[in-house]
């Protein structure tokens, strides 16, 4: 398992492919689930043009690693990779990648979702958005994922 917190743009799909080629045993996983969080041009009713993401070096990595470890204890995880940016981020750029390899798809889905949910809850990052009106504001709270399948709840914001 690997956790990377870095400044600067990355390609989540190339990172996933390269990590799999370098680190995963051949023929053991049957399922890979990736989550990529990207920067939208709107949030909480504001039009957003750019973002700065602050973190707490050391504590951030430690808490992401703890969340990955918890996921690996709950489900059959062969490997997991988390890459999270800090610093300046532009619209449409990736912010975070979570990739989970497992023998079974249910475990890969559950573990990937657990990692991103608890990373968002516990890893110390703070977003400061620049709106298109030229204002800067600290984002006060993240949107939530109920963490369960929300079939038929298209109206639910999550």
């Amino acid at each position, binding site marked *: 398992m690997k956790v990377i917190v870095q400044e600067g743009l990355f390609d989540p799909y190339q990172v996933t492919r390269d990590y799999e080629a370098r680190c995963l045993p051949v023929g053991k996983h049957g399922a890979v689930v990736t989550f990529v*969080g990207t920067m939208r041009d709107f949030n909480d009713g504001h039009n957003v043009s750019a973002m700065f*993401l*602050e*973190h*707490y070096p*050391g*504590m*951030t990595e*430690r808490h992401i690693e703890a969340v990955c470890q918890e996921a690996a204890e709950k489900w059959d995880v062969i490997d997991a990779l988390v890459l*999270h940016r800090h610093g300046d981020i532009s619209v449409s750029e990736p*912010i*975070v990648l979570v990739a989970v390899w497992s023998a079974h798809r249910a475990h890969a889905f559950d573990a990937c979702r657990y990692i*991103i949910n608890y*990373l*968002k*809850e*516990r*890893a*110390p*990052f*703070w*977003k*400061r958005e620049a709106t298109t009106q030229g204002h800067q504001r*600290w*984002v*006060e*709270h*993240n949107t939530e994922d109920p963490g369960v399948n929300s079939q038929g709840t298209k109206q639910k914001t999550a």
Partner: protein
Amino acid sequence: MNITVRYFANMRDRMGRAEDSVAVDGETITVEELWGRVSPQQTLPANVLIAVNMEYTDASRALKNGDEVAFFPPVTGG
């Protein structure tokens, strides 16, 4: 004993600084008492998160020499 205090995001803006180094004469001090030292004008805001040595904790936590205490708002990563 000496305590390092760090502020992040809007807590750094509010304090006007990123870090304090606090020398404490007495035997013990809690996080809440430490806050009274660094911010005498204002009680600890309710939604502020506290970490000691990079682990989450609460305001009643007793500190020891060399501890690093951090105050910051709810996290918004991912």
